[in-house]
């Protein structure tokens, strides 16, 4: 081994603590890249393979009742490759061994097997085409409720309670993210998919020769918009509620929003880590080159080339990077696997194509190495360019001069040690700012990650405790006159019932169009209300419609503007309504109107499609029993369950996330602070030793050593809060979708917590460096000149 290589390895060994702290920051960048790319790839690849193999449809539509004879006409639309007509209905389930009702979605299975949205059989078999009492259920529903093949459950089909035998379990590309009506999170115990032979389903729902759900697969060159328009025309006479593409298919949209999150993570975090690592490498190599000035001069005098010398210092950085990349790979592969497990709980895939590609590994390694080399290159070149003669003579002492601030310091009568600290910062303003900025990023990461918790609390408070105060929602199979509320109020345990009407519509303003559901309700409704961000109850106005902010933005309208509203149910009229107000909402893209106004528009008696009820807790079992036999009930949402699942899921994830982000923030802060303090020590060792000789105590010189770094750490806090707030805001923006909007709620305790972690890590790192002062050799320092 060449002498220079030996020096390299010895330097590396001597610098292990600093090297490791940098390597860890770099490792975080590498790991995040692996995780986000890996998960993104896994989700994307698994989804497309699943869609491909199981022929997930491209276009979806539903109608009230359309004749099957339309099939040829639909298949004839240009660009349509395959058509599947089905009967899809929600029904209340009466499950054995439990009092509470559940909701099931009955899906008909074509006689010759599904052509599109083909379920994957997980156990058992598909229902016999001729059998009227066999079903196949989605696997998570069976697992969650502990069902085995042969078990019997009851379902209220079109007002008649029927026993159904489970003959198989399956998964479907339509329900990767299985979310029931009115739910926010998958709740597999209370919502199940029930496949039933077409004949059985048709006769049960009085749909013989008819269908109410259509899926289309398009040819490669089809124009989806064109197909949607044609399909809408065909279904219009049969109560079509508007066709839509995959982007509005619920399960697919949730996966999209997860992909978006991963993409955002891959864009924001790795550059932060790599940037900080590059800066730290720059700082450390810069100090080493300064210390080894005379050695460099000697090597050059001995005939080493500029290139060899530059390469020597870059190699040191590369060694650090190699360690970082290796740690990052191990950490990333491990975390990615763990995360895939968490994903498996949300998304039910029959298989997971998880492989972090060689390309991703290579990319992360290249980026890590580049970051380190980039951090080293300037100083390495400075070393290479040193003229031997200059290098051998001692460096000129750092040039301090009097500046404007000095006059200020004098009038402030600062102590000399304080002055040393302040002048150190002013002497290298760029280094000081970057150091402070690095620490600020640690704080920012925490602010930007922990605001989530408060946002969720806010969402829960607004969505569940202020807006939706009902205990349960009864979903009716079809719209009914408001008088049905009297029947509902007579159900056991129901204390109060309020009606609500869902109106599927297509809103358009010029060429801007959106298919949504308007919720029509009566003024003074007490159970389900629209709440604005200030907590004020917003009554649906006597006329016009109320839009959520996101929806208004998408349609480009403000209060007072007119809007074409095409009602997709009932008489299917189009009315021009004006926007009477805009509300901020966290879930979905809502639109609201007064139910009396709706009745007046349609010239009919008021109708409801759902009832919100308040339940006497002690009689809830009686209610469930009654509901199991209630005709015209399509489903039931127990809001307490919804609240609980939502909370549990969020809380569990937030704990995992918090731990990860605290670790990340600590890693960044330790990396920056520790290196900064080590360099302080290296630069000031002589100064501090001579102060000790002059009679300064250990505590007094510790103050000088730690002062600069800690002062920068303190200055970093407000900067970190600001950057964190900006990041949080950007993340809220990036994550917003039609499914939900995340409010950016920044509370004092978020900033406080971030700073406690940031300052704690900073103080800890500085104290570790300070310990070296205890063994400072006063005598030997005096023997040499720097």
């Amino acid at each position, binding site marked *: 081994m060449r002498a220079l290589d030996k020096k390299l390895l010895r330097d590396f060994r001597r610098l292990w603590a600093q090297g490791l702290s940098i390597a860890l920051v770099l490792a975080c960048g590498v790991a995040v890249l692996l995780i986000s790319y890996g998960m993104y790839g896994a989700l994307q690849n698994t989804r497309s393979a699943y869609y491909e193999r199981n022929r997930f449809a491209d276009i979806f539509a539903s109608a009230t009742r359309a004749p099957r004879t339309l099939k040829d006409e639909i298949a004839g639309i240009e660009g349509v490759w395959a058509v599947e007509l089905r009967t899809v209905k929600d029904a209340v389930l009466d499950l054995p061994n439990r009092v509470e009702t559940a909701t099931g979605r009955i899906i008909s299975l074509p006689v010759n097997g599904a052509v599109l949205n083909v379920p994957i059989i997980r156990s058992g078999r598909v229902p016999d085409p001729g059998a009227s009492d066999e079903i196949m259920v989605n696997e998570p529903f069976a697992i969650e409720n502990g069902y085995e093949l042969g078990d019997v459950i009851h379902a209220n089909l079109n007002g008649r309670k029927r026993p159904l035998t489970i003959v198989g379990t399956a998964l479907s590309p339509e329900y990767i993210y299985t979310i029931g009506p009115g739910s926010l999170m998958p709740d597999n115990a209370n919502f199940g998919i029930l496949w039933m032979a077409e004949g059985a389903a048709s006769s049960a729902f009085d749909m013989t020769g008819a269908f109410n759900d259509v899926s289309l697969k398009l040819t490669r060159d089809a124009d989806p918009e064109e197909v949607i328009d044609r399909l809408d025309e065909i279904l219009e006479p049969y109560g079509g509620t508007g066709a839509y593409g995959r982007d509005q298919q619920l399960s697919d949209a949730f996966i999209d929003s997860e992909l978006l999150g991963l993409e955002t993570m891959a864009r924001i975090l790795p550059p932060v880590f790599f940037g900080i690592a590059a800066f730290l490498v720059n700082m450390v190599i810069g100090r080493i080159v300064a210390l080894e000035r005379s050695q460099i001069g000697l090597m050059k005098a001995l005939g080493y080339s500029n290139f060899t010398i530059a390469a020597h210092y870059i190699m040191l950085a590369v060694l650090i990077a190699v360690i970082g990349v290796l740690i990052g790979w191990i950490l990333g592969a491990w975390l990615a696997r763990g995360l895939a497990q968490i994903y498996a709980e949300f998304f039910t895939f029959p298989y997971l194509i998880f492989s972090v590609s060689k390309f991703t590994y290579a990319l992360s390694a290249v980026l890590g190495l580049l970051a380190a080399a980039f951090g080293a290159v300037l100083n390495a070149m400075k070393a290479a360019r040193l003229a031997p003669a200059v290098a051998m003579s001692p460096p000129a002492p750092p040039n301090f001069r009097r500046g404007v601030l000095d006059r200020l310091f004098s009038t402030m009568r600062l102590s000399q040690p304080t002055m040393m600290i302040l002048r150190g910062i002013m002497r290298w303003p760029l280094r000081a700012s970057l150091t402070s900025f690095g620490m600020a990023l640690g704080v920012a990461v925490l602010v930007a990650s922990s605001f989530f918790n408060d946002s969720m609390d806010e969402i829960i408070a607004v969505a569940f405790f202020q807006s939706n105060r009902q205990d349960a929602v009864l979903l009716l199979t079809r719209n009914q006159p408001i008088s049905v509320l009297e029947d509902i109020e007579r159900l056991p345990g129901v204390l109060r019932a309020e009606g609500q009407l869902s109106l599927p519509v297509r809103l358009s303003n010029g060429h801007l169009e959106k298919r949504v559901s308007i919720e029509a309700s009566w003024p003074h409704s007490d159970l389900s209300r629209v709440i604005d961000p200030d907590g004020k109850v917003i009554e649906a106005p006597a006329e016009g419609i109320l839009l959520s902010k996101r929806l208004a933005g998408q349609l480009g309208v403000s209060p007072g503007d007119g809007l074409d509203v095409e009602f997709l149910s009932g008489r299917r009229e189009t009315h021009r309504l004006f926007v009477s107000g805009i509300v901020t909402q966290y879930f979905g893209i809502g639109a609201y109107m007064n139910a009396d106004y709706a009745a007046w528009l349609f010239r009919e008696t008021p109708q409801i499609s759902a009832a919100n009820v308040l339940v006497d807790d002690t009689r809830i079992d009686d209610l469930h029993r009654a509901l199991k036999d209630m005709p015209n009930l399509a489903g039931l949402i127990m809001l307490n369950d919804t609240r609980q699942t939502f909370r549990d899921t969020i809380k569990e994830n937030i704990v995992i996330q918090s731990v990860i982000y605290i670790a990340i923030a600590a890693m960044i802060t330790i990396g920056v602070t520790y290196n900064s303090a080590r360099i302080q020590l290296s630069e000031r060792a002589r*100064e501090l030793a001579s102060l000790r000789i002059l009679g*300064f105590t250990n505590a007094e010189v510790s103050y000088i050593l730690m002062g600069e770094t800690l002062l920068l750490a303190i200055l970093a806090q407000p900067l970190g809060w600001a950057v964190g707030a900006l990041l949080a805001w950007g993340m809220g923006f990036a994550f917003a979708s039609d499914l939900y909007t995340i409010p950016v709620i920044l509370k004092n305790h978020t900033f406080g917590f971030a700073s406690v972690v940031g300052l704690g890590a900073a103080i800890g790192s500085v104290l570790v460096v300070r310990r070296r002062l205890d063994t400072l050799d006063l005598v030997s320092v005096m023997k040499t000149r720097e």
Partner: protein
Amino acid sequence: MDRRSENEIIFRTDDVTKVYDTGEVKVYALAGVDLELYASELTVLLGPSGSGKSTLLNILGGLDHATSGDVWFRDLQLSALNDRELTRYRRDNVGFVFQFSNLVPSLSARENVALVTDIAPDPMPPEEALSLVGLGHRLDHFPAEMSGGEQQRVAIARAIAKRPDVLLCDEPTGALDSRTGITVLQALKDINDRFGTTTAVITHNASIRKMAHRVIRFQDGRIGEVEVNETRIDPKDIEW
């Protein structure tokens, strides 16, 4: 005049040894030193390289511990003090001047001196200390803006500003040319004359011995011989 008889003893060492154990061999940096230094005395320590001069000075100044033997500063037994007490002792009593001035580059001349006067019990103003070494006009200059001799004089000003009882100088002119060296020595003599500060100066320049009251020669970690100068000469007359 014999100063010994009329002056109190400032430093007394009793069979002091300092052994460096480097594993295979033991180096006796000091091999039993008995020495007394008197108040107001200016002593020059001479001796070949490696003979133990710096080691002794460091022990007297409280920078280092003796391996065995006892060291007294007046009634204070230095050899019994811990690090904290030694720091206290240095802070209150000792001024050091080394071959390299070791000024704090980020502080001006005045501030470098203030570094000491801020923590000393009875200091003189930094301006006065700098005037004593002939730098009253360079108060606000930073080390980078001064010559080596000027920096060394700031170091002396820093050492004397707390009115120390003793001033310990290890090759204060070692890095300087003769002209600059003489101004530094002149400053040391002035202080000694004016305040009666007990001063010990290590040097390799034998001609400097002529400005001392006493000259102590070191040889192999022991005191070789001690000579008393009946007549001292002024630094400016020293032939370098």
